[in-house]
């Protein structure tokens, strides 16, 4: 037996039993995406007048706030709708019931969102500023990005899939950050206008600006939602089929490509890659209007990884 093959087989067997740092749940991919759709697209401006106490004196304050339209009554409905889309076309191993698996992921995702007090608070705050809401989502994503990469890395070390597969799936994080940056720029431009004193109390003008913003945001959020569904579908498929039993569904001890149906796996992978490419193309096209530097090459200062990759690529035949 070839030496490296021998190492591979034995080392993976050992790592199946190893204790490793807990990975991010796949429902974390979905969370910011639902929040943005719920928080930015399904809203309408409503004029308000209320009495507020400031330094003991009562003042009448009027303005415009954003309320949710009635299409979905709460974020749980969004999440349910999304997971139904994913699982209705996914094959499930005979040892599980489809309903059980769907409910498991739904419960995870809904609980994750419910436990997220910061996000719930931001949903309320959002009635005052959409921009703050997007900035909050972006800041959290930026803070989490290293964990996302480490989760991908950990899954790679516990799998027999090539590293290029994980570089493709982690490209979602790179894309999502670009997306949030662009959404922030769009919201900034459209939210600033209604805040001008002449417009502030004019509900018609505010409505006009918000509608323009929604019109601009809608195709991007739709596209990113499709990509989110595809990455979720790809990852859920791998997790479900790699798990030894039901308890392992969220974090299989070993991700084994031999357990995946080649046709389904290739299809999930291809659809995700196609969506990824199209989404990035769309972000690039729209960034020209709102933020031309979004895709500017990020030639970072030379670092050891960069130097190593340079050597490898230039010596590669």
């Amino acid at each position, binding site marked *: 037996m070839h030496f490296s093959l021998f*190492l591979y087989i034995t080392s993976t067997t050992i790592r199946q039993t*190893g204790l490793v740092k807990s990975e991010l749940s796949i429902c974390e991919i979905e969370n910011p995406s639902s929040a943005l759709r719920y928080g930015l697209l399904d809203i309408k401006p409503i004029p308000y007048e209320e009495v507020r106490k400031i330094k003991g004196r009562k003042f009448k304050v009027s303005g415009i706030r954003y309320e949710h339209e009635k299409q979905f009554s709460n974020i749980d409905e969004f999440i349910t709708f999304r997971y139904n889309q994913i699982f209705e076309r996914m094959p499930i191993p005979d040892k599980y019931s489809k309903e059980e698996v769907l409910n498991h992921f739904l419960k995870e995702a809904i609980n994750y969102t419910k436990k997220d007090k910061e996000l719930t608070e931001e949903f309320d705050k959002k009635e005052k500023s959409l921009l703050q809401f997007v900035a909050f989502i972006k800041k959290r994503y930026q803070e989490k990005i290293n964990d996302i*990469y480490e989760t991908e890395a950990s899954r790679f070390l516990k799998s027999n899939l090539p590293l*290029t597969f994980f570089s493709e799936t982690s490209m979602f994080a790179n894309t999502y950050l670009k997306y949030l940056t662009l959404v922030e720029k769009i919201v900034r431009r459209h939210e600033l206008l209604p805040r001008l004193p002449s417009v502030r109390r004019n509900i018609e003008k505010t409505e006009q600006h918000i509608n323009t913003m929604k019109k601009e945001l809608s195709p991007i959020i739709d596209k990113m939602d499709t990509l989110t569904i595809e990455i979720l579908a790809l990852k859920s498929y791998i997790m479900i089929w790699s798990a030894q039993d039901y308890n392992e569904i969220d974090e299989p001890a070993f991700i084994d490509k031999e357990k995946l149906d080649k046709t389904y796996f290739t299809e999930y992978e291809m659809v995700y890659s196609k969506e990824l490419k199209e989404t990035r193309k769309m972000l690039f096209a729209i960034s020209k209007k709102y933020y031309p530097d979004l895709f500017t090459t*990020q030639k970072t200062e030379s*670092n050891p990884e960069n130097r*190593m990759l340079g050597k490898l690529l230039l010596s590669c035949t």
Partner: protein
Amino acid sequence: MVALSVTGCFYLDSCVVISELLDENKERMDKFKRDVKNYTISCYVSETVINECKKKVTKTVDFVGNLLSNIIAGYLEKLGTPYQRDLAVTPISNDDLHIIRTAFLEIGSNARKFDLFSDPFQAVEEWIVEKYEGELDKAKKPTIYSLLTQLTAIILKEVNSLQSDFESLIELEASYIVQSIEIPDPLISAILVNNGIHQTDADNISVISSHQKNNHNKAIFLTFDYSTILRNWAKIQNSNVKLNNINCCDPIYGLSFLR
């Protein structure tokens, strides 16, 4: 400076594209880019070069992945010995560096030249040792598994950034390089292969012929590949009259072929 007019364009080899992405061969690339800017010269990449770049990235990423996941992890686990360790609970130690040293001496030893400049194993070895030592100096040492995870995560992030830059530069044409629609000329490719050029390089170069035929415009193939192309080009060109109009050179000489 008012530039004299030059006619023609450049076609870039994968090594030129990679140098642009990673800021390698900086002085030569800077001179070449100045020429492109001052004389408004079009720069193309053929589909064959784009595919070659992608293949090189895939090959490189999987090479590093395989080393980290199978070779290094396998040696550090002390596989096949009575002292097998669980990497998830074993903190890193100085002894690990000796295990890594053995791994790099043994792995693929029959096929390797152990040349410090071009041996890909040694490029990864330098990087791993540097990272390992950095962690050994810290008061709180991570487990081996945790360090391997961190190293893999760093590589993934760096590769994503490289892929994103490649996409901007080539696929989205956000800078000075444009994708060419020309395809390889099979006749020229065959002549080049007969002269010892690899099929991929032969296809890349022969696109020049297709471009010149279809656009009646001079095109120069720019490459840093001295070992197989540039050092032998004069001899190859003289071997067949059909290669007379095909010129390959280092990017710093590109302009001289268009004057």
